[in-house]
């Protein structure tokens, strides 16, 4: 399973990278962590003519907080985000999802930006980004665009990034006080992609749910927000009956794909269970944080 041939570029700056993308457009692929792209190339399913290795772009790595917003550089390695005290303090949902990404060796190289730009609907970070209404900042030679998560994920392995653009950072809102989170997955084995996954975030104010986020992985070709369930939850007090009804609402519109690991019907059933469990865990965590 040897890689096919390609032309290799290793730009030293973002400007050099965007120049290369402007020149090669969709003939080029960006090589970030490589943990998704290189297997696809080994299977000869992906064959970019030009590989632009952006691992030298140190300027794209790092986590910072300004004005209630957390900015995560696209080349921030998953293990660094996992070890980051800033992430633990401000983005508990991201912090809870990171350990579920593959295995330690994958997280040594895998990057936050690479994962959301690759946009595998069964991956964890796209669901987290979708849940938190993250903003994706892309840059090209013509300038920068900011794309909200709802518009970023367009289809299977497809995002709103244009071929001449590079994702430079992802911005998340700092979690409000009183927020509890849970990232739960049903996976065949520890570390596998989710058959169905769920990012859950609940904010409680005086015992009432003031914010609810539910985003599935593995149920469509993009991460899916359960907006009907979220609407039901806001303004209510947590209870088993409420969560059961929310689970029903969340799963009802789903028409998940079938594959070797689960039928469509199975994924829908599991989605129901995950929502109930996720909401219960998030509600418990919210009380702990307060």
């Amino acid at each position, binding site marked *: 399973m040897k890689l096919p*041939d390609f032309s290799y570029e290793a730009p030293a700056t973002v400007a050099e990278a965007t120049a290369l993308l402007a020149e090669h457009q969709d003939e080029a692929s960006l090589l970030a962590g490589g943990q998704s792209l290189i297997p696809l190339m080994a*299977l000869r399913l992906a064959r970019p003519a030009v590989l632009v290795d952006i691992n030298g772009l140190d300027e794209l790595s790092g986590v910072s907080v300004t004005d209630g917003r957390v900015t995560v550089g696209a080349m921030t390695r998953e293990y660094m985000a996992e070890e980051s005290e800033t992430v633990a303090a401000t983005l508990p949902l991201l912090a809870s999802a990171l350990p579920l990404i593959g295995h330690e060796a994958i997280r040594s190289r895998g990057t936050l930006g690479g994962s959301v730009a690759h946009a595998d609907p069964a991956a964890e970070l796209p669901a987290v980004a979708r849940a938190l209404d993250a903003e994706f900042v892309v840059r090209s030679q013509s300038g920068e665009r900011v794309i909200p998560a709802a518009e970023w994920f367009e289809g299977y392995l497809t995002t709103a990034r244009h071929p001449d653009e590079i994702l430079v950072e992802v911005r998340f809102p700092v979690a409000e006080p009183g927020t509890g989170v849970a990232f739960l997955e*049903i996976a065949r*084995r*520890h570390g*596998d992609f989710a058959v169905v996954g769920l990012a859950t975030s609940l904010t409680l104010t005086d015992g009432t749910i003031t914010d609810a986020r539910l985003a599935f992985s593995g149920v469509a070709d993009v991460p899916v927000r359960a907006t009907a369930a979220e609407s039901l939850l806001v303004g209510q007090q947590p209870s088993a009956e409420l969560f059961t009804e929310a689970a029903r609402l969340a799963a009802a519109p789903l028409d998940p794909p079938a594959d070797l690991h689960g*039928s469509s019907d*199975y994924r829908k*059933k*599991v989605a129901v269970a995950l929502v109930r469990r996720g909401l219960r865990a998030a509600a418990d965590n919210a009380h702990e944080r307060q």
Partner: protein
Amino acid sequence: MTQIAAQRYTGVSVKRSEDLRILIGAGRYVDDIKLPGMLHAAFVRSPLAHGRVLKVDASAARALPGVVAVLTGADLDEMTVRGPDPLLAMMGGGGPTAEYSLLATDTVRLVGDPVAVVIAESRYLAEDGCELVEVDYEDLPPVASAAVALDAGSTPVFANLGNNIIGPHKRSEFGDVAGTFAAADRIAEFHLDVHRHQNVPMEGRGCVASYVADSGLLTMHAATQSVHVTRMGVAACLGVAPDRVRVLAGDIGGSFGLKIGASREELAVAAASRALGRPVKWIEDRGENLTASGQAREESFDVRAAVSDDGDLLGLDVSMVIDTGAYPVMGTMVPSIIEAMLPGPYKLAALGFESTAVVTNKASYIAYRGPWASETFVRERVLDLLAKDLGLDPFEIRLRNVAPRTSPPAMMITGRPLTGVTTRESLQRLAQLVDVPAFRRRQAAERARGRYLGIGVATFIEAAPGPRAPEGSGGALGQESMRLRLAEDGIVMLFTGQMPHGQGHQTTLAQIAADEFGVPFEQVRVVIGDSDAVPFGLTGGSRSATMTGGVTLHGARQLKAKVLDAAALLMEASALDLEITDGQVVVRGDPDSAIGVAEVARQAASGRLGADVDAILEVEATFDGGEGGWSGGSHCAIVEVDVETGIVKVERYVATEDCGALINPAVVEGQIRGGIAQGIGAVLLERSAYDQDGNYQSATFMDYLLPTACDIPQIEIEHLQTVPLDADVNFRGVGEGGMIVAPPTVVNAIEDALAPFGVRIYEQHLPPARILELIAEQADDDAAASKSTA
């Protein structure tokens, strides 16, 4: 117990000598071999399950810089001799013979069927070259299941066979089948399916073939379970005498039955090396390994059981269909072994057995650790299903049916004596270790809280090597040979045809020889992996503990006697007064007389001891298995099933086992645990999946799922006090047992967990989605039933 002269090493978990190299990365696996001028091979493979090959155009590939040659199926057909797979050739078979060329010429018969081989300066370039080979195919209707293959109208996979039945239907009866069934209180009927899964060692197949024109010799660096079977296969294919081929093997990264003889690809690489006069390396990648190297276990069974109201299993009548895939290897041999083993350790009075073997457009059915394992699955599943019908506990029904250990021993209805079988003891000890009543209380309490725990038990016996055959023509597994030599440096060398691939023979055999001959463990060297140097042998069938352990024991005695005869001349003493301790020959009671064994060897080599003493102190020993015997055991699993997600967790796994005397307990336990892990993997994770067009769907490790450290619990193992059968050799094999009995153990536990839902399980693969389906289907059946009675 086994009578060994000085038991210092045998029975002890002596640290492995293999570990000194593998732990520092100094193992030598076939992909580590680099020869001057070596080229690399890659195969052009069919994307279709079934098709005619209309045209192969390799011109663009041949023009690619770095590509040295492209050999099509037609090219290779001209330079090789057509013949059966080497394992099939060795074990015989009978039945219709499929005719086919080495690589596909006019027909491709599975996705991944090799059509041409590209030889290049690197594997990277060889794969580039493969993409440039243009092949025109014409689709043929895929024979993608046994059901299709059984249809007389299905397109024959092999034109010369005329249909897709490669093992024509045959039936045997043992005991009075009709009478037993007529007299039974009740007849139960089941259909059971075992799914396709596969060996998947961490190292795939591979070889470096090196033909030297000057000498006309081909050296095959192989990953194989027998250098001799590989040699026979390569020589036959190349149309040369076996002495024109030398097979060398070093460290092998696992096999579990995959690497026996030589596959079509390896034979093609050997032919390519001869054609080019240069070494050619082929290392299969994981995609090839999963898709084309071979698979196993796809069998279905219609079972009728004759039962008494008290739970006696009186008779079984079983009809089996086995899907042997495309190119014949082992599939047609499996039904007769299943037939022979079906009664297990039970008092079964009658057995009817019939089988049909079909070819399909799937990977070949090859040997996989306990190839006949489905007999245990069928029997142990049936016992649990009957227990439920009759309201009996699973331990209870088994203990009721186990044949008593009598003298003379009880006979399996299929003809073998159950000599020394300790099934009753293993079940009873297992029940104690598990404390079933306590579990049942916990199970009930957890059910009330909505958690579903289950317990499953299963028992098995394995002919490792099996009891001595009554005709006296030799043991059940034929003779084992070994050459033993005392070298001039004092090293005791054991030349064996065993080809360990994880079993630790270089340690275990040295333990026995050291004890029996009288040298320190470090003074024994086990020589393996050279067809020019070692006698015939094969590592497989769980044979080595008895056969090779036994030939080592007896051979070491014979060598010792020879050495003492020589030493007697040297020391001017009677051989009867001499002993060997710690590598020193000494006159009993006179420690000052001691001389090193090296000195004896040197004196013999010098000729000074006279014409009656061989210059090389060496013996050729053979062993027929002695009294042999059965291995076996009883396993128990406790599982928890999450009925909302179908996820199964194995909480606890306990095995009581009887393999006679243990050479190295850590090695024994490692074999058992590894086999159990494969069994758990088969039930919860592993499936070689094809769609209805014969497209293979489990071609990467993202889809063919192997168990990880989070999937296999601590496995508790207790060894039983065994029944010694032989005066000297009571080691029995354990290589395959874990994999044979773990699947029904786990399935039985899952069914027990789902008992409140009324689920009955008639299959072996239970991924989460299937668990939920079973619960839902049972609920639907119950709803329909209550509606119809309403």
